[in-house]
């Protein structure tokens, strides 16, 4: 492990490529807004309520079989939406005789009022939301009446009005915004700090992870035995974060094996990962000054199918008997099959995955296991990229903050105050 190697100096400040990105992003923003306005205009629903009018038989409230008109009828805008819903509420009568309530709506105080829904006698509110057959538009005033259904007749409330208004910020998600802003702020701040540190020639501290030392030892063992190193970058596709991080580690492994002239076999499960793996390994050999030693055939696409890939890797392990097996990436049910077969061949095995359900199998069957975020940290450690280490620091500090919040939550809940916990509930 090259502990003394300086960090890759961070890129220069805003430069031509970044300016291009900003300009391109601004242009795309404008284009997107234009598209959205067009989409929205096309999606505008126009027209009055389409429900058929209810057949209501109005009688005199208080007469036999005629319930009293619903009391305390009101309508309110539902907040934190796009102006798509209003809530109509009334006082539900507990006495018998009320079979249910019908909610009527019109766009004009003079009507015509059409029934939009019927609810049971115990219900005291109704949410009128936009949808097929229930067009509700932002900024439009609607008029409501609530009719109580009786045995022999119905009685209707007075008209109430309400306007659905759209919100520009969902206040229910303020908690999420605060936490995200805090997290993003930490990540960006520490990334910048790490970049500044690197510019001054320093290296932000990351503790050594035992599994990483083991990787070098395993490669050394394979070199002494004259056998190959097998590197399996997981079975997930190139869009998976673990595959991306695995490529970083693969690049470092490729540099190391190139120096020691040890064969490196990389079986790949996804077709899209093949060019990524080829380029990563090739770059590793080039960086080590041994481009001639790169063997393209050692990057072997086997199959997209999980267990077909597993059978293929098992075959490689049994036939070619690599001395070191590195399982670093996203693994699923095949993890134990791979690790056990590798053990049977006598190889040293190092695994790392963030798929927590597979960790027990790797821990049992491998010599070293990078658990969850250690795998991400390993990539940062090996890459010596200030950005990656900055992200790691930001994530670690966020965890400290979350632990503190949890402790406060435990205390407040134990003291009987639920307000603190309730603030974190996501609606």
């Amino acid at each position, binding site marked *: 492990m090259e502990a003394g190697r300086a960090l890759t100096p961070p890129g220069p400040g805003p430069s031509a490529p970044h300016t291009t990105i900003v300009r391109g992003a601004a242009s795309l923003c404008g284009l997107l807004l234009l598209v959205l306005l067009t989409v929205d205009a096309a999606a505008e629903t126009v027209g009055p309520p389409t429900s058929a009018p209810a057949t209501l038989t109005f009688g005199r409230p208080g007469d036999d079989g005629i319930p009293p008109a619903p009391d305390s009828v009101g309508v309110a805008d539902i907040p934190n939406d796009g102006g798509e819903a209003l809530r109509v509420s009334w006082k539900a009568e507990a006495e018998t005789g009320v079979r249910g309530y019908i909610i009527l709506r019109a766009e004009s105080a003079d009507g015509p009022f059409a029934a939009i829904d019927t609810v049971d006698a115990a219900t005291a509110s109704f*949410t009128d939301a936009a*949808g*097929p057959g229930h067009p509700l538009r932002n900024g439009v005033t609607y008029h409501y009446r609530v009719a109580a259904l009786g045995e022999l007749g119905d009685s209707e409330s007075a008209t109430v009005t309400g306007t659905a208004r759209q919100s520009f910020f969902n206040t229910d998600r303020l908690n999420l915004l605060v936490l995200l802003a805090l997290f993003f702020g930490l990540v960006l701040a520490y990334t910048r700090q790490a970049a500044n540190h690197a510019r001054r020639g320093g290296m932000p501290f990351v503790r050594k992870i035992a599994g990483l030392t083991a990787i070098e030892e395993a490669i050394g063992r394979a070199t002494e035995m004259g056998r190959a190193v097998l590197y399996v970058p997981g079975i997930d596709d190139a869009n998976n974060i673990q595959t991306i991080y695995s490529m970083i580690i693969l690049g470092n492994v490729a540099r190391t094996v190139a120096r020691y002239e040890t064969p490196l076999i990389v079986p790949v499960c996804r077709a899209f990962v093949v060019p990524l793996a080829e380029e990563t390994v090739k770059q590793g050999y080039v960086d080590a000054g041994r481009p001639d030693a790169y063997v393209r055939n050692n990057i072997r696409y086997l199959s997209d199918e*999980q*267990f077909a890939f597993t059978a293929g890797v098992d075959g490689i392990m049994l036939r070619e008997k690599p001395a070191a097996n590195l399982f670093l990436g996203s693994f*699923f*049910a095949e993890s134990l099959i791979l690790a056990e077969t590798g053990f*049977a061949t006598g190889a040293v095995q190092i695994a790392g995955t963030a798929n*927590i*359900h*597979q960790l027990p199998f790797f821990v049992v069957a491998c*010599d070293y296991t990078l658990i969850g975020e250690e795998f991400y940290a390993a990539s940062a450690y090996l890459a010596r990229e200030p950005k990656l280490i900055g992200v790691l620091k930001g994530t670690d500090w966020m965890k400290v903050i979350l632990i503190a919040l949890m402790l406060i939550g435990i205390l407040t809940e134990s003291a009987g105050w639920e307000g603190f916990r309730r603030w974190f509930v*996501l*609606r």
Partner: protein
Amino acid sequence: MSLSNRLVNLDRRYIFFVILIVIIIPYIRPLGLPIRVSREAEGFFSAIEKVPAGGTVLLAADYDPGSMPELQPMTLAALDLCFRRNVKVVGFCLWPAGPPLLNRALSQVAPRYGKEYGVDYVNLGFKEGQEAVMVRVGSALPEVFPADYNGTPVSTLPIMQDVENFSSVHLLISISAGYPGTKEWVQQVGQRFQNANREMLPIVSGCTAVSAPEYYAYVNAGQLDGLLGGLAGAAEIEKLAGVTGTATRGMDGQSLAHLIIIAFIVLGNLLYFLGGRRKK
């Protein structure tokens, strides 16, 4: 070589053989061990029981043949519970190898209750897109699945006339073997959409045993209303549904296999402590 050394270095094929025997024997001579139903399995059962007759559930069969022994019995039991109560089932898959398995399950259970395809149940097939599909189903299911597994436009199917999105159904049943599956349903859909009763859409899950420990957190947080874990969970729902399926029959073998594995662990540690250590 001493006995303890030979045991420590035992050829693993002997171990495989012992496992094979203990799993096969209960199929020949069933032990009939009683199945105990867990609270999480009861939650799964209750969630289906709460769906009113004539209501509709979404069944996401997100698994493939590898997990079939654990998950297919759950699907069969869930369909049994739905059909006997005249609950309609809209099934689909986010795993490409899933639709034929869902088809098989539907064709096994539906005829028992006289259910008709397109009226009482439908298989919408597979759709690529993972989380994007999950969220989109919440707002416009017919747009995501314009045709069913056989290519029939959903607009012509009676069952799909009233199914627009999550607010048209009462429950989401996720039978899941991994990604995408239950975790993504909870993350993308849970607590975001309402069902036909204008409550938060309830989600229940049947998953492989290896995934189940992860989902207990969601059950405790109320994000999942019920959970079936592995073959044991499948046997529990079969018991609640009153059917004797492959899961129930497999539990005897699983019981013995667990005992044998425990015996191997104890033996291995005994040999280790008695001096039959083997350095790595």
